[in-house]
């Protein structure tokens, strides 16, 4: 499956986020963050949010963090975001 997907991406010249399992992260300013393709919340506090992603975890560090909306694929975070860390 993985091989096929990688082949399709290369040959059909598709952007990698459409096909791969890698998270697509979109940040608007320092206050809004939208992540697609997450693998669930690991830890949630108002200063840190740890999100499971393909191949590890993503840690969002900030203040007054709030989950604006969530479903099984995407999450929309608001708050004062200071750092974005990949933990592998």
């Amino acid at each position, binding site marked *: 499956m993985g091989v096929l997907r990688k082949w399709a991406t290369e040959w059909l010249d598709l952007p990698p986020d459409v096909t791969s399992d890698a998270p697509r992260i979109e940040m608007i300013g320092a206050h809004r963050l*939208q992540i697609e393709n997450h693998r*669930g*919340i*690991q*830890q*949630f*506090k*108002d200063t840190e949010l*740890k999100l499971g992603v393909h191949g590890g975890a993503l840690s969002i560090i900030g203040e007054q*963090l*709030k*989950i*604006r*909306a*969530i*479903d*099984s694929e*995407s999450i*929309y975070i608001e708050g004062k975001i200071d750092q974005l860390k990949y933990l592998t």
Partner: protein
Amino acid sequence: MLDIQLPPVLLGRVVVECRGMKLASFLNLITKANIRVYDIYWVDEHRLKMTVLLSQFYELVKLMKQNQVRMRILHKSGLPFYMEKAKKRKWFYVGAILFLFSLYGLTSFIWNVDIEGNKKIPASQIQNILKQEGVFVGQWKRRLPDTVLLQENLLRKMDDTSWVGVRTEGTRMIITIVEKKVPEPNDDQAKIREPVHLIAKKNALIYEMKVDRGNPKVKVNDMVKKGQILVSGIYGDGEQNNTNQIAGAKASILGEVWYESEIEIPLVQKKKVYSGYREKGRFPYVFRFQLKNPFFSPPYKQYEQIQQIDRMRVGNWELPFGIIEEQYLEMQWVRSQLSEEEGIKLGLEQAKLELLADLGKGSQIVAEKILHHRQENGKVYVKVHFDVVENITEKQPIFQGE
């Protein structure tokens, strides 16, 4: 991203507080169960605040029970909850709607018919005519006749009116009537057969006579005494009483009458002169007490004051308080010193005016003569003789069988 078909306001939202041990993993369970939660706040280590749609609330509760998460409802909002409340307050809304309906209903009737401008025509008569035309208290506004038509009809039905105006102000109907000016029945016509003699009012010298009716007993240049018959109302010579016809008398007889007036004129005259400046002040009053500003003083040294009282009214009922408007006119007393001659002249004028005012209209001063004058204590005393031509007739009824 997350698309919600209907705005959450319509679907109903519930804000809940969850309490439990592993809340992060519980959140994953929620997303896996396809329950849409949003606005998730971290309260403390074991508490989260979140909002869920009402339609998915019971699914969420079920999931909580399975995972030993306890919850508390913080807030409910949206249309479904509002409807729930509205059901409880059914009669309130029924009342509000009823109120609007009754307000509309009550304003679609005529509650007052006011008639203005009638002096001779009694209001009850006008009301009767209006009733025939379909204008009365309690009439439905839609069934009122057309204004223009109504005006025409009213004008036609009431002979003594020269104009009728009809207007509606809300629930009030105002009928304005302008009455025809009927000429006063002629005085002479009515009294033409009045059985009277004309007698002399005063001692006088007959100056002019115009006899319309009756038997003149005097001639021009006759001296007459007070009470003397000037024109008899009985034709004939008065000897043969039975054949004499009572016709009444009507004549204009002018007699020359002499008057003597004595006047005193102070030589120092005081006159008011207004400067033309004026100020206004408004003060409220309660009962008999005027609430005056203690620091207020009239702005002029010498002034004349004009008061106008503005009473508060409720309908015909006078309230015991209102506003007094005061006007201050600045003025000055001006003294002037008159010479004796000027004093006499002034006195003469004054005497003439007084005399004419006493005698009434139709009188005329034909001659005047100063008999005597003297000055004393700053005053001039003048004695004047006036020759006045005036109407000297007076009516005296003729009694039958005299």
